[in-house]
C-alpha cells in the first residue's frame, strides 16, 4: 500500500477529513451558537448587531461542511453512502434546517414589519438550534455504532436513533455551540448587548460543563469501545486530560473576562472532542452495534490509491488557499460590528 511519510493514504484522508470536520465545528459552530442564543436579545438593535457579527462570514464557514462532505464522498464513498442513507431522516431534517437558516438571515432585514422580523428571528434561532441538535444526534449515533449487519446493511429502526445517549450528545453539542457562539459575539460587540452576552456566556458555559461531565460519564459506562484505545495506549489518555483542562480554562477565562482566550479554548475543545471521537473509531469509520463484521474500516471504504493521491495533491494546493480566504475574510471584518447601510 502506498504511504507518504510512513502513513498510508486512507489514514491521511482520515486525518484530513477529521481536520475539515473540526474546522467546520469550530467555524460554523460559533455562528450556529450565535443563532441559538439569538432570541435572548430583546432589542431590535441588539438582534441586528448579533446577526451582522456573523453576516459576512457564516457562508464562508459553511464551506467547510461542503468540502468535508465532498472529501468524505470522494475518499470513502461507501461510508458516505452508508451514513447518509442510514441516517436518512436526520440528514434530511438537517438540510431543511440549513435552508431555513440561510433564508432567515437573508430575508429578515428585507421588510420593516415587526411580525416579519420576529418570524425570521424565530426561524433563525430555531433552525440554528435544530442543526446543532441534529449534528449532535448524528454524532451520538456514530459513537454508539449503527445497526449494520455483516454486509453493512441497515437492520435497525428509525426510532433507535432517538436513544437517550444520542440525545445527551445532541444537547451537549448545542451547549458547546451556544457557549462558543456567545463568546464570539462578545468579541464583536460592545455596550448593552456586550453586557447581556457576558451573562449568557457565563450561563451557557456552566450548562456546557454539566453536559460535558454527563456525556463523559455516559460514554465511559455505556460506550466502552470508545475508551478501549486508552487501555492499549495509556499515553493517549493525555488527550482526554488536555480536553478536561481546556474545558476548565473556558470557565477560568470567562471569570477573568478574557473572552478571546475563552473563544480559543472552546475552539480547541471542539477539536479535541472530535479527536477523541476519531481515536475511538480508528481504523474504522463506521461502527456496527450488532455485528463487528459490519464495521466499515477506512481500508474497506477507501477510494483507489490513484484517486486518493490526486486528491491529496488537490488538498495540498487547495487547503492553504481556503485557509487564506478564511483568514482574509476574518481580517477584513475584524473589530466590533458597526451597522451600515448595506448591513443585514
Amino acid at each position: 500500500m502506498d504511504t507518504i511519510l510512513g502513513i498510508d493514504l486512507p489514514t491521511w484522508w482520515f486525518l484530513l477529513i477529521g481536520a475539515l470536520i473540526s474546522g467546520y465545528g469550530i467555524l460554523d459552530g460559533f455562528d450556529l451558537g450565535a443563532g441559538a442564543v439569538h432570541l435572548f436579545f430583546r432589542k431590535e438593535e441588539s438582534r441586528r448587531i448579533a446577526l451582522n457579527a456573523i453576516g459576512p462570514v457564516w457562508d464562508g464557514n459553511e464551506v467547510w461542511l461542503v468540502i468535508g462532505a465532498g472529501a468524505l464522498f470522494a475518499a470513502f464513498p461507501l461510508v458516505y453512502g452508508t451514513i447518509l442513507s442510514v441516517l436518512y431522516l436526520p440528514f434530511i431534517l438537517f438540510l431543511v434546517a440549513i435552508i431555513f437558516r440561510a433564508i432567515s438571515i437573508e430575508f429578515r432585514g428585507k421588510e420593516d414589519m415587526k411580525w416579519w422580523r420576529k418570524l425570521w428571528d424565530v426561524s433563525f434561532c430555531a433552525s440554528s438550534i435544530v442543526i446543532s441538535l441534529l449534528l449532535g444526534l448524528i454524532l451520538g449515533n456514530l459513537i454508539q455504532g449503527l445497526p449494520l449487519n455483516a454486509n453493512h446493511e441497515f437492520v435497525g429502526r428509525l426510532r433507535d436513533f432517538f436513544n437517550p445517549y444520542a440525545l445527551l450528545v445532541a444537547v451537549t453539542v448545542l451547549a458547546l455551540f451556544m457557549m462558543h457562539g456567545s463568546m464570539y459575539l462578545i468579541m464583536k460587540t460592545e455596550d448593552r448587548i456586550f453586557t447581556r452576552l457576558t451573562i449568557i456566556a457565563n450561563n451557557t458555559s456552566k450548562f456546557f460543563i454539566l453536559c460535558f461531565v454527563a456525556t463523559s460519564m455516559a460514554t465511559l459506562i455505556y460506550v466502552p469501545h470508545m475508551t478501549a484505545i486508552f487501555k492499549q495506549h495509556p499515553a493517549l489518555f493525555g488527550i482526554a486530560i488536555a480536553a478536561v483542562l481546556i474545558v476548565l480554562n473556558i470557565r477560568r477565562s470567562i471569570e477573568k473576562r478574557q473572552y478571546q482566550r475563552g473563544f480559543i479554548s472552546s475552539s480547541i475543545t471542539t477539536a479535541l472532542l472530535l479527536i477523541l471521537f476519531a481515536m475511538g473509531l480508528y481504523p474504522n469509520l463506521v461502527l456496527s452495534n450488532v455485528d463487528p463484521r459490519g464495521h466499515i474500516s477506512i481500508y474497506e471504504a477507501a477510494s483507489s490509491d490513484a484517486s486518493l493521491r490526486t486528491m491529496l495533491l488537490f488538498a495540498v494546493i487547495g487547503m492553504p488557499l481556503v485557509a487564506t480566504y478564511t483568514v482574509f475574510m476574518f481580517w477584513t471584518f475584524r473589530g466590533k460590528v458597526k451597522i451600515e447601510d448595506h448591513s443585514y
Partner: protein
Amino acid sequence: MDNVELLSRIQFAFTIAFHYIYPPLSIGLGVCLVVMEGLYLKTKNKLYEELTRFWVRIFALIFGIGVATGIVMEFEFGTNWATYSRYVGDIFGSALAAEGIFAFALESAFLGILLFGWNKVSPRVHFMATVLVALGSIFSALWIVVANSWQQTPSGYRIEGQGMKARAIVTDFWAMVFNPSSVERYSHVLIGALLAGSFLVLSVSAWYILKKQHVGHAQAAFKIALWVAAVSALGQLVTGHKSAEVVTKYQPAKLAAMEGHFEKSAPADMYLMGWVNAKEQKTMGLKIPGGLSFLVHQDFNQPIPGLNSIKPENRPTAVNFVFQTYHLMVAIGMTLIALTLFSLYLLYRKKLFETRWLMSVFVFAVLLPQIANQVGWYTAEVGRQPWVVYGLLRTSNALSQAVKAEHVLASLILFTFIYVMLFALFLYLLNKKIQHGPDVDTEQEETSSRMNPVLS
C-alpha cells in the same frame, strides 16, 4: 419501477430543477457585475457604482438561495443514491470535492467582501472580490458539469468488483476530467448561464425604461447586458451544434430520442416541431427530410441508427418528452439570436429604447433562457435513461438500500412545501428590490450616515 426509485427520481429531479434556476443566474449576473464595476473603476462615473450596488443586492438574494439548495444536492447523492455514491465515489466524488475546494470556497469567502466590504476595503480590492466571486461560480459550474459529463460519456476509468460491489476507479484523472463531452457540455451550460443572467438585467432594465424610472441607469445596464446576451446567443449556436455532435457519437439512443427516429438504420429527418407516438413508433410534424443526416454527415442520405437498433431495455422510455424538451430548447435558442441581433441593429440606429413593444418583449423574455436551461437539462438527463452512468450503471440499481418509500415521500413533501414557499418569497423580494430601484446619490454628504429603509 418500485416506489423508492420513482420517489427518489422525482425528488432528485425536483430539487435539482429548482436549484438550477439560481446558479445560472448568479453566473450570468456575476459577469455583468464585473463589467459594471469595471466600468465604474475605469470611468469613475457614479452611475456605474450605483448600478453595481443595485445588482449586487439582487445577486445576494439569488446566490443565497443557490447555496442553500445546492447543499441539498450534495447530500442527496448519499441519502437517496448510496449505491451510486459507492459506484462513482472515486470519480464523481473527486470532482465534487474539487468543486468545494477550488470554487465554492472562493465564491463564499469573497461574497462577504462583495456584499459587506464596501467601506472596509478599497474599490480595487472590492472589484477583485467581485471578479473572484464571478470566477468562483464559473469554476464551480466547471466541476459540476465535468462530474455530470462523466456520467454521460465515462472515460479514464476501469470497473472493479462485481454486482452490487462493483465500482468505477480512476485510471487517468485528466481523461476523466476531459471526457469526450466535458468541453462541449461545459461551454453550452456556461453560455446558457450567461444568457440567464444577462436576460434578467435586460428584463429589469426594459421595465424601468417602459416605466420611465431610473432611465439613465437602465439604459446603461441594458447596453452592457445586450452585448453579453448577443455574443452568448450566437455562441450557443456553436456549442449547441458541438454538443449534438458529441451526443451523436457517444449517446446514439439519446440522439434518436431527441429527433424521434425509430428505424434501425435509415436517413433521419430533422424536425422543427412535432409529436412522437412512441407506441406506434411514429413521429409527425414539420420536418426537413434527411436534415439530421445532413447535419451529422453532411449528406441527406446517410443512415443514422434509430431507437430500434438499440436493445429495448437500453432505450430511453420518455421519447416524446425528450423530443419536446429538445425542440423547445432549440426554438428558444433561435428566438434569442433573432431578438438580440435585431436589438443590436436598433441600438446602432439609435431607436432601441424608443421601440416600446420591444422593451415589453424583453420584460418577459427573462423566462426564455430559464426555460431553455431547464428543458435542455431534462433532454440531457432523461435522454440518458435508463442509465445513471451511461452504459455502466442503471438508475434502478443506484438507489440507497436502507431507505424506505415512506421516508422518501416524507422528504419529498417537505422539500416541495419549502421550495414552493421559497420561490414565492424569492419572487416577492425580487419584485420589491426592482420596485425600489438603484439608490441614487443626490446628497453626497449624507452617503455614509444614510439608512436605507429596505436594507436596514
